[in-house]
């Protein structure tokens, strides 16, 4: 039985072009996760965008702890979203939202 523990990831999405919204970002992370690791990984990931600021690009992703590494790798390999070139920068991971602030 796979762990159901959550992990939170604080990130910054650097953008060069029109701003990317949360829906577009989540969809692209899922698409890359599917392409790299397959349907089971997407199904188990329990991916959710907790917070996201379109202007600064700062946000918090929530996912299954067991899939954290794959989620980050998939996100890092996103080159562009809707013709906007992006660079995904993982900042910090934690088991709690509170932990991300410290």
């Amino acid at each position: 039985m796979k762990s159901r523990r959550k992990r939170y990831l604080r990130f910054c999405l650097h953008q060069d072009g029109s701003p990317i919204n949360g829906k577009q970002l989540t969809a692209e992370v899922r698409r890359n996760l599917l392409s790299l690791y397959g349907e089971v990984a997407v199904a188990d990931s329990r991916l959710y965008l907790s917070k996201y600021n379109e202007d600064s690009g700062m946000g918090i992703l929530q996912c299954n702890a067991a899939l954290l590494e794959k989620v980050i790798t998939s996100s890092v390999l996103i080159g562009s979203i809707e013709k906007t070139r992006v660079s995904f920068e993982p900042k910090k991971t934690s088991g709690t939202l509170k932990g991300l602030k410290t």
Partner: protein
Amino acid sequence: MSIDLNVRSPTSKSLGSFVKMADSLGLTGFATVLQRDKPFETLEGGMDLFTRIDLPESGLRAVKKAAKEARPKAAVIAVPLRGVDVSNWAAEDERVDFLTLDKPHNECILRESTAKLAAVSGTALEVPIEPLLTSSGLTRSKVIKVFRENVQTAVGMGMQVILSSGSKVVMSMRSPTAMRYVGLLLGLDWKYTKIAVQEGPQSIIDRNKKRLGSDFVAPGVEIVQRGETE
């Protein structure tokens, strides 16, 4: 401290935006293929800039000649991983810093014998991650295959692996942490990714700074004190 040894800024004008991006990603320096006056320099904001020269893909004689000319001018010298002759020579030659997988396709095969030679002389295998960002689906899986197989050979033979961005555009640059996750995808373990992204590139720069210094004579031989001539 983290540096990216492969930034392919197309013009001197665009270099400023690469410096800005490198700064925001937490890099302390990067190597550029643009011709600079000095192999090592520090910009006003504190960003270190290194000159990188990629030797031509032509025959062995031309590559040898180019290496001789390039060494005093470059902080890092790279040779593309192609034919056996050039790869074996580059692996053995201490003037060459990397064998690079710049255009990953099925002909880019690092032989175990080449990796063994490189491990002895300190030549590293450079993996620029840019092709992973610009491809998708089956094309990307082929790139991943070439990268993973060559990384496995290098690590198995004790050859150092270095990860770089190979970025032609600003947004292809990645933070050191992001690069470490790409390292995991290529089959490196988490501990080794730190060597491939941070410690390895820094040690290559430190080594070459020493080598290009006026006190260096040969590996293991350097001038510690100069005598006075009458």
